[in-house]
């Protein structure tokens, strides 16, 4: 039994390193920056270059190290991403949500760098996939009203209604400029 387990393990490890080698070869054929990235990854702690580089390294298998290992160490793909102030402003207006503080912006930059790893995948000729049910006809019900008369129940959920309407403050007023915006919001550090 022990032997069998060992065999499993070593066969898993062997095949992983074979895959890794293929990938490294493939990457080498890509553009230079991608190659550099691969190099960085293999020196780093996982990410885009196949599991085995880390697995075979002394830190890979240790129980303690697993907390800090996978994907925590994201290296830039195309150099560090900076989100300029005008983009911060634009996103806050679009999302109607503020970053709150510089940490929020830093976090977005990290999220973008993480997402940039997608660009090592070759997707030439691949169609985007919206839904796993794309290849089947889905059930549609008849186009007539089956329930209703629940206006009161729905209005009761609102904090502010008047004569059967939801009440909103005046519209068509753009959000104030960034500096004045912070005054609107509690606990905003900007």
């Amino acid at each position: 039994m022990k032997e069998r387990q060992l065999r499993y393990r070593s066969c898993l490890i062997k095949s992983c390193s074979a895959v890794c080698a293929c990938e490294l070869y493939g990457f080498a054929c890509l553009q230079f920056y991608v190659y550099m990235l691969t190099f960085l990854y293999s020196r780093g702690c996982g990410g885009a270059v196949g599991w085995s580089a880390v697995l075979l390294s002394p830190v890979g298998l240790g129980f303690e190290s697993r907390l800090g290992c996978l994907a925590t160490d994201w290296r830039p793909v195309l150099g560090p991403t900076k989100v300029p102030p005008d983009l911060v402003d634009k996103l806050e207006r679009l999302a109607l949500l503020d970053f709150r503080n510089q940490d929020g912006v830093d976090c977005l930059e990290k999220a973008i760098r993480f997402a940039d790893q997608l660009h090592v995948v070759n997707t030439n000729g691949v169609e985007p996939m919206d839904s796993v049910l794309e290849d089947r006809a889905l059930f549609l019900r008849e186009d007539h009203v089956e329930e209703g008369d629940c206006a009161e129940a729905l209005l009761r959920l609102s904090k502010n209604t008047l004569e059967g309407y939801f009440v909103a403050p005046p519209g068509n007023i753009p959000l104030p400029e960034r500096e004045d915006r912070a005054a609107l919001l509690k606990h905003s550090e900007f």
Partner: protein
Amino acid sequence: MVSPGQRQRHLDLGTGGGRGCEGASSGAVCLCLCRCPRPCGGGRVSPTELCTRCLEQVKRTGFLNAFVTVTEEQALRQASEAERRFLEGRSLTASPLTHRDRSPPPGKPRGPLDGIPFSVKDNFCTENIETTCASHMLKGYFPPYTATVVQKLLDQGAVLIGKTNLDEFAMGAGSTDGVFGPVRNPWSYSAQYRERPGVDPRSDWVITGGSSGGSAAAVASLGSFLALGSDSGGSTRNPGALCGLVALKPTYGLLSRHGLIPLVNSMDVPGILVRSADDAATALGVLRGLDVRDSTTIPPPAAPPHLPDDIDIARIRVGIPKEYHAPGLSAETLCQWGRVADLLERGGASVEQVSLPHTQHSIVCYHVLCTAEVASNMARFDGLQYGHRSEVNDSTEALYAATCHEGFNDVVRRRILAGNYFLLKRNYERYFMKAQKVRRLIAQDFARVFRDGVDVLLTPTTLGDAVRYCDFIQEDNRTRSAQEDVFTQPVNMAGLPAVTVPTALSSRGLPISLQLIGRASHDWQLLGVAKWLEQRLEFPAIQLPQDVSQAEREAGVPGRVRTSVL
């Protein structure tokens, strides 16, 4: 009258697996010996008694913070109705009755779940029961309707014990990021964990995993027999694995999402958390089906009413995807992976190595698709129609911005902002479409191995056993999600069924689990293999202390159980 066969089925839930709690006679321990209305200590347990014991257990383990709302009064009412049905149907023999009113409604037991206590993650709408998503945004929200899956359980006579804690809007992998505070893993207080040298129960409690951590803790701590979670990237399987439960993520579309507050619409499914594969099959049989209110539901496949006891796996082909041998995988989990693969091979299954080459990109792809759909979904919380409304009244946009600012925590806020970035016109193709293309490659990987004849894939569920809370919070939510969901979210990309099965306790005395992945709509085959494994793995029952209140005192936290206004 109920035929003996019907009666047997009626009593099925909770009997499978034989994983009762060991030990003597305190209420808590007895509860799991009588895991269903079955002979227990020479008598039978009535639905009322069962419900009362679950409620007591929920109170005793309140320090776990598993529940947001306990619906005690309603639960007792439902239980007494179930009891009346049992008496009318003469399905239960003499048990002491607390109710004298035996008039309406007449009838007989409704099915295998009648009278069975269950819990629901607090992101499923429940009529007139507060549904918070563990967010300020929905505190005080009493939905005017009930989610289809919850309604199906209620229609079967199952007894709703309460709504369970989670990460805010189900965004997380630890159940540590909700407004009601973190959920504690019941195994933190088990004899198996605490009786190891050097464990300090005050500070060394471990997380449940997430985001359905409250549901997992409720079932693992014997406060419910069944709990509903939701699974977008592993949110049911991850806590199920860390709490030593059987947790099923069904095929996308098999269960209705109507009433499940959406996170990632194209991947969300209701999940099932139970203590055995049989229970999962029973629940799945009740919950599946087309729903006119959810156009993404599919006609369910024909399925047996319950799993056979004698399962033959000789013709099953099991694939071991080599890419799941990932960096950070603990040596003990790896060892269990090998052990179970051996077990299947010795049992006659053919076990072979397969490749899912795009696995490593899946978590990145998930990150982009998840934030994009979150950005879209969260836009509904504007403060006008329901939920939190800010006092700011300068303009409509100012109201929206202030409401979101006050209502969402940093995790939700950051996902929304990242999603908005990926969906910008200039980034749409570069990130969102790119991720959708990678998604197809991941789905095609699975399709290829299943086309080649593999029936079931065997993988780890998590990198290792549960982490201590104090270690877990050293990293931010996104980093943790990327680590914790690494083995679970590829399945959501492809809409496949997956179930996690506990295999053994680690050297720390905490559960280690493995994941089985099956073909779309082959959920029952998957559960069959899970049951076969369960019969052979003999995963130990949780040994909670006789006096749980001592654990509570040592935990140093007051129980925070709120009771519904109902």
